[in-house]
């Protein structure tokens, strides 16, 4: 009986671990996407300062 429950537990744990890993991966991708969007929303830095013409 313990063998049966142990095998089911192992299978369930392995699949759950994979699901969690997928979820963490997706969360990381969301964060990268947000960072990209906020970065390009900022106004672009201007070019190197030009010398002032007198």
């Amino acid at each position, binding site marked *: *009986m313990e*063998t*049966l429950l*142990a*095998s*089911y537990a*192992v*299978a369930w744990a*392995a*699949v759950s671990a*994979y*699901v969690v890993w*997928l979820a963490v*991966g*997706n969360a990381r*991708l*969301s964060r*990268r*996407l947000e960072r*990209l*969007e906020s*970065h*390009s929303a900022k106004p*672009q*830095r201007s*070019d*190197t300062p030009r010398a002032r013409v007198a």
Partner: protein
Amino acid sequence: MKSIESDRPSPGMLIGGAVTTCLVFASVWMIFFVAPTEATMGDVQRIVYVHVPIAWCGLAGCVVMGISSAIYLVRRDLKWDYRSQAAGEIGWLCSTLTLATGSAWAHEAWGTWWTWEPRLTLSLVLWIIYAGLFLVRSSIEDPYRRARIVGVLSIVGMSDVPMVLMATRWFRGVHPIAPEMEPRMKLVLWVSVISFTALFVLLAAVRRRQLETAERITQLEVADWSAGVASQS
């Protein structure tokens, strides 16, 4: 510019996820409460109801991996390589669990965790093929080169699948071939096969989408970075 699809799951995937979850719960309930207890082995025999579906998925994963790679080699669309990679990961997971659940069953039925009979040996070979392909994947950085090299190897790797399938019929061994099952047992087994297959197909689809999204985000990041560099020079 931010034309990348939302990373929210698509409606199809949500429905698929809901259906699959119901199926899996139903199947587990049936395994424990509908399937009759087997005469010789007792309750431990119920391992069969996870072992068989997972073993089948392990084999199917290898075939899907090989076929997706073949399509990639013809079409050169990286989307097919992502499919192949996802199938490879799920397939390897299934192969590992097949060996684990099979060993547990073997310990109860034969008194030993392992024996070098044809089907077990060839199943272990399949596990090693999956693992070897992972190693090759991780050692190549260029996605196109990686897809090509792993692709050819995946196609050759499929050669083990017919061997595993036919091992019990062609060669003398101790692995059960197709034991006589009561109708209720067969029903539970079929439900398990369908629900576990649905589960792994769903996981593979999620993983493939994640790979595609990751690649697109990387491209956007690189474009963003080089735009940033260009604007400073």
